[in-house]
């Protein structure tokens, strides 16, 4: 794989950072160039810097077993970190990710200019996102240099993919721009075609295993703006949270350069603790989107909605029922009758860790009824798993 020197261009009111990508394996159909684009004010791309492209493409190269040649300059620290990131992916999923050699034409030994002052966080409207933002606001972040200034929403990542501009991404942007503005946080909407590269090279399961690199790549593309970048983590530091996963306190920090610190954030609590922490915020109550399906909107109000049926919706609804705050949330418009969320055989379909987390939540709130239901669900879940193993 060869990654050309990045170029900056302006097209249709968009600022575009792009680099040519050539593959040794001609049977894989990649676009000719990878690009990142933002509209509005100058995004402060760093001319020529290739960090964003190597971070994004290293996983595809590992999957394909192709060595990489990078023609633009790359940060020394990032080059060292990527060697460890490769080691981690290869250790955890050796059948999917092979170690590849990376030939850097230029490594930046030292960057004389100072680190940019922007502090950003990925933002999707989900629980991890809202919690990460809340942890980075001045009221909760005691270190001023780490207080959030920007949130980054990515059109071209996971379910939020609307590169044909059918309206979904703009609607998401409008909703969350106004929500975040109340906290003096500027929302940036980025578009990128990196999903086309990842999708061509690997199945979804491998994309999930390496998703923090896709997020970090977007932050690196705005290397003139961001000095710190938080990836909202899914859990704390307990041993079970170190289980191999696409965003992890062991791996994410290796995606940093000397000028952009990538931080695994939001790791101070479990998912249920995060829910408790943000559940009283009106902004969260009116805009929380946890659903596994693509974004949907209320026809009358235009606000985001959740399906109320998928695993993450059920988990969140049950959590809110336990703490007695479900009625305050307007983004779950199609709730099933309450008794259905209390049926152990339905809850048993959740991950065991999710069930355990909800049980602890129920214990904290002295909800004996829920503790009993969740214990039954855990037993059923164990029995189901045992049967499926046999």
């Amino acid at each position: 794989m060869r990654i050309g020197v990045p170029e900056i261009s302006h097209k249709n009111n968009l600022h575009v950072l792009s680099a040519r990508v050539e593959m040794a394996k001609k049977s894989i159909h990649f676009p000719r160039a990878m690009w990142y684009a933002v509209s509005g004010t100058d995004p402060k791309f760093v001319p020529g810097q290739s960090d964003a492209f190597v971070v994004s493409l290293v996983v595809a190269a590992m999957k394909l077993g192709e060595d990489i040649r990078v023609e633009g300059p790359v940060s020394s620290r990032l080059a060292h970190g990527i060697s460890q990131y490769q080691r981690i992916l290869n250790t955890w999923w050796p059948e999917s990710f092979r170690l590849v050699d990376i030939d850097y034409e230029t490594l930046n030994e030292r960057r004389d200019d100072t680190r940019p002052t922007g502090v950003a966080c990925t933002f999707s409207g989900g629980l991890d996102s809202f919690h990460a933002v809340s942890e980075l606001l001045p009221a909760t972040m005691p270190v001023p240099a780490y207080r959030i200034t920007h949130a980054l929403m990515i059109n071209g990542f996971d379910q939020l993919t609307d590169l044909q501009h059918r309206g979904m991404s703009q609607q998401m942007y409008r909703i969350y721009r106004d929500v975040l503005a109340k906290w003096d946080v500027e929302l940036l909407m980025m578009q990128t075609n990196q999903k086309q590269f990842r999708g061509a090279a690997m199945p979804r399961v491998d994309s999930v295993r390496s998703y923090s690199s896709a997020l970090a790549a977007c932050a690196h593309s705005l290397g003139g703006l961001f000095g710190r970048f938080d990836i909202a983590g899914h859990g704390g530091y307990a041993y079970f949270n170190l289980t191999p996963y696409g965003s992890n306190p062991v791996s994410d920090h290796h995606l940093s350069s000397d000028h952009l610190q990538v931080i695994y954030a939001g790791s101070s609590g479990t998912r249920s603790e995060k829910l408790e922490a943000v559940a009283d915020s009106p902004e969260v109550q009116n805009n929380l989107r946890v659903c596994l399906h693509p974004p949907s909107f209320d026809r009358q109000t235009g606000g985001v909605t959740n399906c109320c049926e998928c695993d993450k919706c059920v988990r969140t609804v049950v959590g809110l029922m336990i703490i007695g705050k479900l009625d305050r949330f307007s983004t779950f418009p199609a709730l099933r009758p309450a008794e259905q969320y209390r049926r152990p055989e339905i809850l048993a379909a959740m991950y065991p860790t999710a069930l355990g987390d909800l049980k602890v939540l129920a214990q904290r709130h002295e909800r004996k009824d829920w503790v009993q239901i969740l214990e039954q669900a855990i037993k059923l879940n164990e029995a189901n798993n045992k049967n499926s193993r046999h």
Partner: protein
Amino acid sequence: MRIESPEITHNDGRHVLSAGVGFDSKGVQMPETLWFAVNDTDPRYVRGLADAFLVSLVAVAMKLGEDIRVEGEVSSCLAHGLMNYQRILSTWWPESFNIVEIDYHSLLDRREEQRPSGVACALSRGANSLHAFTQWLSANTSQKAYEITHAMISSDLERVGDSPDEECPGPLSRNLRSGLAESGIELLEVHTNLERFRIPVMSEDDRLRAHSSALAACAHALAGVFGRFCISGHGGYTYEELLPSGSHPAMDHHLGSDQLQVVHLPSFVT
């Protein structure tokens, strides 16, 4: 706990970096000063920077449940990292380590000067550190910015240092110094009385659990020399090897500052 502004003194060819330390807890016998000392060459301590003292004492304060007031300057990056370091220790060993508040008199948001070019590795008598050391030799790394320039030993982390004026270049350091010099690597031996603070309040297990902070503290004391500092790990990245431990790939980097990158170097060989 109160950590006063650090001072630099010179005495009989030894350069000493020290800071006064006061405790709230009654009945705990601690020295009044924490110090780091190196022989001969100018260690290029960074005047006024309290990073080394805070990294040294955070685990002690957590063990005692004492909040900290730091009167010297501390790197913002380190202050942020210590929030996570505390969370990790407290999550893994809640019976030993309480999360404490740290009140900073002065946080350095940006350091204008360049990161020092020194790359150091902690050396002990152990196989892990020797293996890590060889991994970072210029012959074994393709990245110039990570080629090792210094080896750091601190035998005082395995015993109690009595005085900053004490001369103790033991046989290990004498032999190492000449051997390393042939490879163009400078050996720095750091003396410290850090264990005099740790031993009275922390069990041997707890000191091992906070092992990487003691090593990183010695590197921070030499913040004018080192830009990267490697702590050797005992294992790789398999889930079984990620069990809570005093040096860990999810933890050690939180002990870095903007100027000093602390790198956990895993070991991929048994």
